[in-house]
């Protein structure tokens, strides 16, 4: 009930209401941004871009119930556009060396996983990350990325197959 009221206020240009809407799911937004950006600073930048875009466009949101999936789509797009901009200034040979998540305490294994994961095409790795790291179901992933559920599933299976193939060895038999 309260969320509905806040959306209404935010649509009327109330900044504080918008802030409260976002803060109500702060961890979700932060983790989603983190999955793409892999560090605190860039994740916050992306969320900041998102809130500015929401503020400018919330009056166009037709279905209030869709606020969270709509805003998360915007967040994912903000992340991708920052990543695209960052890439422009990275020398070509470094493109593949993406950062690992900062929080790993013992990064050995994860670096291996991260290495193979980041070699997948962006559309395959994002599905795997959203599904496994954020525990999102296929439907939610589809809503956020704005793709049909069938596409989510097929990207998932292709992505996982490729991941297994590239990691080889014991993983191949999984």
């Amino acid at each position, binding site marked *: 009930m309260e969320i509905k009221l806040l959306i209404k206020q935010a649509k009327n240009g109330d900044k504080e209401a918008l802030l409260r809407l976002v803060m109500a799911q702060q961890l979700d937004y932060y983790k989603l941004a983190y999955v793409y950006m892999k560090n605190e600073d860039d994740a916050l930048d992306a969320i900041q871009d998102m809130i500015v875009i929401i503020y400018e466009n919330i009056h*166009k949101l037709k279905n209030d119930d869709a606020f969270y999936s709509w805003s998360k789509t915007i967040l994912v797009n903000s992340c991708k556009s920052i990543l695209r901009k960052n890439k422009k200034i990275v020398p070509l040979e470094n493109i593949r060396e993406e950062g690992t998540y900062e929080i790993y305490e013992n990064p050995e294994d994860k670096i291996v*996983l991260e290495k193979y994961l980041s070699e997948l095409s962006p559309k395959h790795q994002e599905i795997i990350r959203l599904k496994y790291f954020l525990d999102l179901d296929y439907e939610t992933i589809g809503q956020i990325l704005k793709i049909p559920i069938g596409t989510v599933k097929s990207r998932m299976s292709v992505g996982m197959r490729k991941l297994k193939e590239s990691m080889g060895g014991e993983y191949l038999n999984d």
Partner: protein
Amino acid sequence: MTNIEKLLKESKDNLDRLEVPEDMESRLRNALDNMPNRKIKRKNRTRGKVAALVIATLLVGSNMDTLAYYGKRLIGYESVMDGTLQELNELGKGQSINKSYKFKSGVTVTLDGIMLDDNNLIAFYTINDPKGKVEDKDSDLRVSIVGALNKDYTYSGSGEANEDGTEMRWVIACDAPKFYEKKMKLKIESMGTEQEEGVIEFKLDRTEAMGHKIKMSIYKKIKVDEREIKIKSLVASPTTTIIKGQIQNILELGVDHIKGERFMPENIDIVLLANGKEVQVKSSGISTDMKGINFYISYDALPVDIKDIEIKLVSFGGNHDTNESIELSKGSVNKTIKILEQDISINEVYESKGNTYINITTDENTTLSKVSLNIDGEKKELEKTLPGDYEKIVVEGTTQIKHTRTLEFRGTGEKLELNIQRMRYKKLYDETIYKHKIR
């Protein structure tokens, strides 16, 4: 679970340990504070149609040559234009652009024309979607007006779709471009599955610009809340009338910051009267930057037969740093405290299901915007506010509305201290601050 899934699960566990950075809220608040406020008007559909019909009849009936700029486009925008714009449009005061960008999805955006004067740049654009889902497409589009050095002009506007959803028309207005701007761009980013960026370039033809009717430097100071607001100028152009002013200069802002008594203005309500009649407000904004805290209020254009102008301050509201602590005991308290001359009545403090509740009453325009409760030395942030009642009371002939609600904090304890760090309130003034006769 397969080995790969195990590895993925470990990554997830690590991610789950993430905590939201403490400064997230303040960074987001800052980002929003730096944006000018926007107000969106959407006009009633039927009214728009009636107006369109009337004007269509007028057009056919009389002078076709006044339509030099918009020609047949004119009628489509009637429902999204306010009165002043309609009149100007009828007089053909615009500059025709008529350039399009077509997205791969089949959606086309056309910049039909612009209008330019000393206060505003107004752009008229149309979105076409042959698939009939133009409103959905519109939600996916991010439109910006970009000048030299990629300066992004913030704008506000209103739009409306036709019944079969194939066409949507927008009228948007931003600040007048800087004097050095010649070529500008309407940038349209598609945010959907297919990300795509479209650019429509247009040239400002300043010979077509409409200039201004009245330009006044005012420099009038008003005392508000132990501070001074300065009204600096009024510029009336054919499309709008804009009042600009300053709430704090950078020095005052800095001093308050150091003293921890920051004041974040949020709402300034100034009425503009032309020939004794109120001029409609279109939008307003407050910005804080290196130049201090400044505001603008944009009103409709002044009437042609303007004789006198009056500016009235109605109310002023903002968020204040307070940092006040109040010791509380449980039970019926009935204690009223005064912070920054605002009454806060604490009615009752009670425990329920492991939470502590505080029932308070304040003026309807007062909110405790940042509040925490110290329970036996442990700081608890406000969990939520349970809605309560609004009550009308009459004090010395004026009606006041009091708002009673309950604050919820997690945990219980013996020693309670309510900490009000920030408070938002609005004060009513209703004073004439400037009068001017023209000629």
